[in-house]
Protein backbone atom coordinates (compact mmCIF):
# COMPACT_ATOMS: atom_id res chain seq x y z
CA UNK A 1 0.00 0.00 0.00
CA UNK A 2 1.46 3.37 -0.98
CA UNK A 3 0.71 6.13 1.45
CA UNK A 4 0.62 9.69 0.18
CA UNK A 5 2.72 12.36 1.89
CA UNK A 6 -0.40 13.64 3.61
CA UNK A 7 -1.23 10.19 4.92
CA UNK A 8 2.29 9.71 6.24
CA UNK A 9 1.91 13.04 7.99
CA UNK A 10 -1.57 12.15 9.24
CA UNK A 11 -0.52 8.80 10.64
CA UNK A 12 2.98 9.84 11.70
CA UNK A 13 2.29 9.22 15.37
CA UNK A 14 1.39 5.61 14.59
CA UNK A 15 4.29 5.17 12.19
CA UNK A 16 6.71 6.43 14.83
CA UNK A 17 5.72 3.64 17.18
CA UNK A 18 8.19 0.81 16.82
CA UNK A 19 5.42 -1.70 17.40
CA UNK A 20 3.30 -0.24 14.61
CA UNK A 21 5.36 1.44 11.87
CA UNK A 22 4.26 1.70 8.26
CA UNK A 23 3.38 -1.99 8.20
CA UNK A 24 1.07 -1.62 11.16
CA UNK A 25 -0.61 1.40 9.63
CA UNK A 26 -1.12 -0.58 6.43
CA UNK A 27 -2.89 -3.25 8.42
CA UNK A 28 -5.12 -0.62 10.02
CA UNK A 29 -5.82 0.99 6.65
CA UNK A 30 -6.77 -2.38 5.20
CA UNK A 31 -8.95 -3.25 8.19
CA UNK A 32 -12.73 -3.64 8.09
CA UNK A 33 -14.54 -3.13 11.39
CA UNK A 34 -18.27 -3.25 12.17
CA UNK A 35 -19.53 -1.12 15.07
CA UNK A 36 -22.91 -2.18 16.39
CA UNK A 37 -24.58 0.85 17.91
CA UNK A 38 -23.83 4.51 17.22
CA UNK A 39 -24.51 5.60 20.78
CA UNK A 40 -22.56 5.92 24.00
CA UNK A 41 -19.93 3.33 23.20
CA UNK A 42 -20.19 3.46 19.40
CA UNK A 43 -19.36 7.17 19.42
CA UNK A 44 -15.83 7.04 20.89
CA UNK A 45 -15.15 3.77 19.09
CA UNK A 46 -16.05 5.31 15.74
CA UNK A 47 -14.15 8.53 16.42
CA UNK A 48 -10.92 6.78 17.38
CA UNK A 49 -11.09 4.20 14.60
CA UNK A 50 -11.73 7.02 12.10
CA UNK A 51 -8.77 8.95 13.43
CA UNK A 52 -6.63 5.82 13.19
CA UNK A 53 -7.56 5.37 9.55
CA UNK A 54 -9.37 2.03 9.69
CA UNK A 55 -10.08 1.43 6.00
CA UNK A 56 -13.72 0.39 6.24
CA UNK A 57 -16.01 1.17 9.15
CA UNK A 58 -19.50 -0.31 9.13
CA UNK A 59 -21.95 1.23 11.56
CA UNK A 60 -25.38 -0.14 12.38
CA UNK A 61 -28.06 1.64 14.40
CA UNK A 62 -31.81 1.96 13.85
CA UNK A 63 -32.21 5.14 15.91
CA UNK A 64 -32.26 8.87 15.32
CA UNK A 65 -30.31 11.32 17.48
CA UNK A 66 -32.22 12.38 20.59
CA UNK A 67 -31.44 15.38 22.82
CA UNK A 68 -30.75 13.07 25.76
CA UNK A 69 -28.03 11.35 23.73
CA UNK A 70 -25.85 14.45 23.60
CA UNK A 71 -24.78 14.06 27.23
CA UNK A 72 -22.37 11.29 26.15
CA UNK A 73 -22.67 10.31 22.49
CA UNK A 74 -19.88 12.60 21.45
CA UNK A 75 -20.12 11.89 17.72
CA UNK A 76 -23.54 13.60 17.58
CA UNK A 77 -23.93 17.36 17.91
CA UNK A 78 -26.93 19.60 18.69
CA UNK A 79 -27.86 20.23 15.01
CA UNK A 80 -27.98 16.43 14.50
CA UNK A 81 -31.06 15.92 16.68
CA UNK A 82 -33.63 13.85 14.77
CA UNK A 83 -31.05 12.77 12.17
CA UNK A 84 -30.43 9.01 11.78
CA UNK A 85 -27.47 8.23 14.02
CA UNK A 86 -25.62 6.35 11.31
CA UNK A 87 -25.79 9.39 9.01
CA UNK A 88 -24.60 11.71 11.77
CA UNK A 89 -21.78 9.28 12.58
CA UNK A 90 -20.74 8.90 8.95
CA UNK A 91 -20.52 12.66 8.52
CA UNK A 92 -18.18 13.10 11.47
CA UNK A 93 -16.06 10.06 10.57
CA UNK A 94 -15.39 11.48 7.13
CA UNK A 95 -14.78 14.98 8.45
CA UNK A 96 -12.06 13.56 10.67
CA UNK A 97 -10.75 11.29 7.96
CA UNK A 98 -11.85 11.23 4.31
CA UNK A 99 -9.80 8.03 3.82
CA UNK A 100 -12.36 5.94 5.68
CA UNK A 101 -15.02 4.10 3.72
CA UNK A 102 -18.13 4.23 5.90
CA UNK A 103 -20.95 1.76 5.34
CA UNK A 104 -24.15 2.63 7.18
CA UNK A 105 -26.98 0.31 8.16
CA UNK A 106 -30.00 2.27 9.37
CA UNK A 107 -31.66 -0.77 10.92
CA UNK A 108 -31.49 -2.99 13.99
CA UNK A 109 -29.22 -6.01 14.10
CA UNK A 110 -31.47 -9.08 14.21
CA UNK A 111 -31.26 -12.83 13.82
CA UNK A 112 -32.32 -12.30 10.19
CA UNK A 113 -29.56 -9.92 9.11
CA UNK A 114 -26.69 -10.53 11.55
CA UNK A 115 -24.90 -13.28 9.66
CA UNK A 116 -25.13 -11.39 6.36
CA UNK A 117 -23.96 -8.09 7.83
CA UNK A 118 -21.00 -9.33 9.88
CA UNK A 119 -19.51 -11.65 7.31
CA UNK A 120 -17.47 -9.07 5.39
CA UNK A 121 -15.81 -7.58 8.46
CA UNK A 122 -12.56 -8.53 10.23
CA UNK A 123 -13.75 -7.51 13.67
CA UNK A 124 -17.07 -6.60 15.31
CA UNK A 125 -17.49 -4.17 18.20
CA UNK A 126 -20.47 -4.34 20.54
CA UNK A 127 -21.50 -0.78 21.32
CA UNK A 128 -25.04 -1.71 22.30
CA UNK A 129 -26.92 -1.20 25.52
CA UNK A 130 -29.33 -4.08 25.74
CA UNK A 131 -28.78 -7.72 26.58
CA UNK A 132 -30.76 -9.37 23.79
CA UNK A 133 -28.54 -7.85 21.11
CA UNK A 134 -25.37 -8.44 23.15
CA UNK A 135 -26.18 -12.13 23.16
CA UNK A 136 -27.06 -11.99 19.47
CA UNK A 137 -23.70 -10.39 18.64
CA UNK A 138 -21.92 -12.99 20.73
CA UNK A 139 -23.70 -15.92 19.14
CA UNK A 140 -23.37 -14.58 15.59
CA UNK A 141 -19.64 -13.98 16.04
CA UNK A 142 -18.96 -17.32 17.73
CA UNK A 143 -20.86 -19.20 15.03
CA UNK A 144 -19.14 -17.22 12.24
CA UNK A 145 -15.74 -17.46 14.00
CA UNK A 146 -15.54 -13.66 13.98
CA UNK A 147 -13.45 -11.85 16.62
CA UNK A 148 -15.33 -9.25 18.58
CA UNK A 149 -15.21 -6.89 21.52
CA UNK A 150 -18.01 -7.03 24.10
CA UNK A 151 -18.67 -3.92 26.15
CA UNK A 152 -21.21 -2.73 28.69
CA UNK A 153 -21.57 0.31 30.91
CA UNK A 154 -23.96 1.31 33.66
CA UNK A 155 -23.98 4.26 36.04
CA UNK A 156 -20.31 4.43 37.01
CA UNK A 157 -19.15 0.99 35.91
CA UNK A 158 -17.83 -0.55 32.74
CA UNK A 159 -16.73 -3.97 31.62
CA UNK A 160 -15.27 -5.43 28.46
CA UNK A 161 -13.79 -8.60 27.02
CA UNK A 162 -12.38 -9.53 23.63
CA UNK A 163 -13.29 -12.77 21.88
CA UNK A 164 -11.25 -14.64 19.33
CA UNK A 165 -12.24 -18.15 18.25
CA UNK A 166 -11.39 -20.51 21.12
CA UNK A 167 -11.30 -17.92 23.89
CA UNK A 168 -14.04 -17.29 26.46
CA UNK A 169 -17.12 -15.83 24.85
CA UNK A 170 -19.80 -13.73 26.55
CA UNK A 171 -21.97 -16.79 27.16
CA UNK A 172 -19.06 -18.61 28.82
CA UNK A 173 -19.42 -15.99 31.55
CA UNK A 174 -23.13 -15.16 31.31
CA UNK A 175 -25.10 -18.19 30.24
CA UNK A 176 -28.22 -16.42 28.96
CA UNK A 177 -29.85 -13.00 29.05
CA UNK A 178 -31.63 -11.87 32.22
CA UNK A 179 -35.40 -12.26 31.89
CA UNK A 180 -37.03 -9.07 30.51
CA UNK A 181 -38.95 -8.48 33.73
CA UNK A 182 -35.77 -8.40 35.77
CA UNK A 183 -34.51 -5.30 34.01
CA UNK A 184 -35.97 -1.94 35.05
CA UNK A 185 -36.93 0.46 32.25
CA UNK A 186 -33.86 1.66 30.43
CA UNK A 187 -34.30 5.34 31.11
CA UNK A 188 -34.19 4.86 34.89
CA UNK A 189 -30.66 3.66 35.37
CA UNK A 190 -28.61 6.54 34.04
CA UNK A 191 -24.91 6.61 33.24
CA UNK A 192 -22.13 9.11 33.86
CA UNK A 193 -21.36 10.34 30.35
CA UNK A 194 -17.58 10.05 30.49
CA UNK A 195 -17.83 6.36 31.38
CA UNK A 196 -18.88 5.75 27.79
CA UNK A 197 -15.64 7.34 26.65
CA UNK A 198 -13.58 5.33 29.14
CA UNK A 199 -14.94 1.99 28.02
CA UNK A 200 -15.44 2.74 24.31
CA UNK A 201 -11.88 3.93 23.92
CA UNK A 202 -10.59 0.74 25.53
CA UNK A 203 -12.60 -1.17 22.93
CA UNK A 204 -11.12 0.97 20.14
CA UNK A 205 -7.63 0.21 21.44
CA UNK A 206 -8.44 -3.51 21.34
CA UNK A 207 -9.50 -3.17 17.69
CA UNK A 208 -6.23 -1.47 16.77
CA UNK A 209 -4.26 -4.11 18.69
CA UNK A 210 -6.12 -6.84 16.83
CA UNK A 211 -5.47 -5.28 13.44
CA UNK A 212 -1.77 -4.64 14.10
CA UNK A 213 -1.09 -7.74 16.19
CA UNK A 214 0.47 -5.67 18.93
CA UNK A 215 0.22 -6.55 22.62
CA UNK A 216 -2.11 -8.96 24.42
CA UNK A 217 -5.81 -8.77 23.71
CA UNK A 218 -8.35 -8.93 26.52
CA UNK A 219 -9.02 -12.56 25.69
CA UNK A 220 -9.82 -14.93 28.53
CA UNK A 221 -10.02 -11.82 30.70
CA UNK A 222 -12.87 -9.56 31.76
CA UNK A 223 -11.72 -6.00 32.41
CA UNK A 224 -14.04 -4.26 34.78
CA UNK A 225 -13.84 -0.82 36.36
CA UNK A 226 -15.67 1.39 38.80
CA UNK A 227 -15.16 5.05 38.01
CA UNK A 228 -16.20 6.20 41.50
CA UNK A 229 -13.10 4.61 42.97
CA UNK A 230 -11.16 4.35 39.69
CA UNK A 231 -10.47 0.74 40.55
CA UNK A 232 -9.74 -1.38 37.50
CA UNK A 233 -9.84 -5.10 37.88
CA UNK A 234 -9.04 -7.90 35.45
CA UNK A 235 -10.79 -11.18 36.08
CA UNK A 236 -9.13 -14.21 34.50
CA UNK A 237 -11.63 -16.37 32.70
CA UNK A 238 -11.47 -19.15 30.18
CA UNK A 239 -13.52 -21.02 27.66
CA UNK A 240 -16.33 -22.73 29.57
CA UNK A 241 -16.99 -26.28 28.44
CA UNK A 242 -20.63 -25.90 29.51
CA UNK A 243 -21.09 -22.79 27.36
CA UNK A 244 -24.35 -23.09 25.42
CA UNK A 245 -22.83 -21.74 22.20
CA UNK A 246 -19.11 -22.59 22.21
CA UNK A 247 -19.02 -25.48 24.70
CA UNK A 248 -18.74 -29.15 23.89
CA UNK A 249 -22.53 -29.69 23.89
CA UNK A 250 -23.92 -26.48 22.41
CA UNK A 251 -27.65 -25.81 22.78
CA UNK A 252 -27.49 -22.54 20.87
CA UNK A 253 -26.82 -23.45 17.26
CA UNK A 254 -28.80 -20.68 15.59
CA UNK A 255 -29.44 -17.00 16.21
CA UNK A 256 -32.20 -15.85 18.57
CA UNK A 257 -33.99 -12.53 19.01
CA UNK A 258 -34.59 -12.40 22.74
CA UNK A 259 -37.46 -10.35 24.09
CA UNK A 260 -36.65 -6.74 24.79
CA UNK A 261 -37.03 -5.27 28.29
CA UNK A 262 -40.43 -4.42 29.80
CA UNK A 263 -40.50 -1.04 28.09
CA UNK A 264 -41.67 -1.71 24.55
CA UNK A 265 -39.33 -1.41 21.59
CA UNK A 266 -40.44 2.13 20.75
CA UNK A 267 -39.87 3.61 24.17
CA UNK A 268 -36.68 1.60 24.45
CA UNK A 269 -35.45 3.16 21.25
CA UNK A 270 -36.43 6.66 22.37
CA UNK A 271 -34.85 6.37 25.76
CA UNK A 272 -31.89 4.14 24.95
CA UNK A 273 -28.93 5.01 27.15
Amino acid at each position, binding site marked *: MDFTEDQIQRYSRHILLQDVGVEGQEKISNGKVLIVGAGGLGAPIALYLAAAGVGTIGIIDGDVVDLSNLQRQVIHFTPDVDKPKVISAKEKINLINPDVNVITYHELLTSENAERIIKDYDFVVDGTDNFPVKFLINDACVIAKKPFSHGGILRFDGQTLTYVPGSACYRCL*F*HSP*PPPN*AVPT*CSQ*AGVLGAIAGMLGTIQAAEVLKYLTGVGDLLTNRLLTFNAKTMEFRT*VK*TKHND*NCPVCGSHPTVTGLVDYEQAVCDIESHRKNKH
Partner: protein
Amino acid sequence: MSKISVNGKAQEVVTPISITDLIKLNDVAQPDMVSIQLNGEFVNRDEFDITQVSDGDELDFLYFMGGGQETPNPFG
Protein backbone atom coordinates in the same frame (compact mmCIF):
# COMPACT_ATOMS: atom_id res chain seq x y z
CA MET B 1 -12.62 -18.41 60.62
CA SER B 2 -11.22 -18.97 57.13
CA LYS B 3 -9.89 -16.44 54.68
CA ILE B 4 -11.30 -16.29 51.18
CA SER B 5 -11.34 -13.56 48.59
CA VAL B 6 -14.31 -12.21 46.68
CA ASN B 7 -13.55 -9.92 43.73
CA GLY B 8 -10.02 -9.49 44.98
CA LYS B 9 -11.03 -8.43 48.48
CA ALA B 10 -10.34 -10.58 51.52
CA GLN B 11 -13.27 -11.92 53.51
CA GLU B 12 -13.43 -13.97 56.66
CA VAL B 13 -16.07 -16.65 56.68
CA VAL B 14 -16.82 -19.84 58.51
CA THR B 15 -16.12 -22.69 56.10
CA PRO B 16 -17.27 -24.84 54.57
CA ILE B 17 -19.97 -22.56 53.18
CA SER B 18 -22.07 -23.12 50.07
CA ILE B 19 -21.94 -20.61 47.25
CA THR B 20 -25.64 -19.93 47.79
CA ASP B 21 -24.98 -18.97 51.39
CA LEU B 22 -21.94 -16.91 50.45
CA ILE B 23 -24.09 -14.96 47.99
CA LYS B 24 -26.57 -14.25 50.81
CA LEU B 25 -23.76 -13.24 53.14
CA ASN B 26 -22.50 -10.76 50.55
CA ASP B 27 -25.97 -9.30 50.24
CA VAL B 28 -25.97 -9.64 46.46
CA ALA B 29 -28.96 -7.66 45.17
CA GLN B 30 -29.92 -10.02 42.37
CA PRO B 31 -28.61 -13.47 43.33
CA ASP B 32 -30.16 -15.21 40.35
CA MET B 33 -28.22 -13.06 37.92
CA VAL B 34 -24.70 -13.19 39.28
CA SER B 35 -22.14 -15.41 37.53
CA ILE B 36 -19.56 -17.03 39.78
CA GLN B 37 -16.03 -18.27 39.24
CA LEU B 38 -14.44 -20.35 41.97
CA ASN B 39 -10.66 -20.53 41.69
CA GLY B 40 -10.88 -19.66 38.01
CA GLU B 41 -13.62 -22.13 37.08
CA PHE B 42 -17.22 -21.21 36.40
CA VAL B 43 -19.77 -22.81 38.68
CA ASN B 44 -23.09 -23.77 37.10
CA ARG B 45 -25.96 -21.90 38.68
CA ASP B 46 -27.74 -25.16 39.53
CA GLU B 47 -24.69 -26.23 41.53
CA PHE B 48 -24.50 -23.13 43.76
CA ASP B 49 -26.28 -25.01 46.57
CA ILE B 50 -23.95 -27.97 46.57
CA THR B 51 -20.62 -26.26 45.83
CA GLN B 52 -18.65 -25.63 48.99
CA VAL B 53 -16.15 -22.85 49.52
CA SER B 54 -13.05 -23.56 51.63
CA ASP B 55 -10.13 -21.72 53.20
CA GLY B 56 -7.99 -19.92 50.62
CA ASP B 57 -10.60 -20.00 47.84
CA GLU B 58 -10.82 -17.12 45.40
CA LEU B 59 -14.16 -16.14 43.97
CA ASP B 60 -15.23 -13.71 41.27
CA PHE B 61 -18.79 -12.40 41.27
CA LEU B 62 -19.61 -11.17 37.77
CA TYR B 63 -22.61 -8.98 37.05
CA PHE B 64 -24.52 -8.03 33.94
CA MET B 65 -23.65 -4.56 32.82
CA GLY B 66 -25.24 -2.49 30.14
CA GLY B 67 -29.01 -2.53 30.16
CA GLY B 68 -30.43 -0.46 32.93
CA GLN B 69 -30.44 -3.06 35.66
CA GLU B 70 -29.75 -2.63 39.37
CA THR B 71 -26.31 -4.17 39.87
CA PRO B 72 -24.34 -4.11 43.08
CA ASN B 73 -20.91 -2.52 42.98
CA PRO B 74 -18.59 -5.27 41.70
CA PHE B 75 -15.86 -3.77 43.86
CA GLY B 76 -18.03 -3.63 46.99
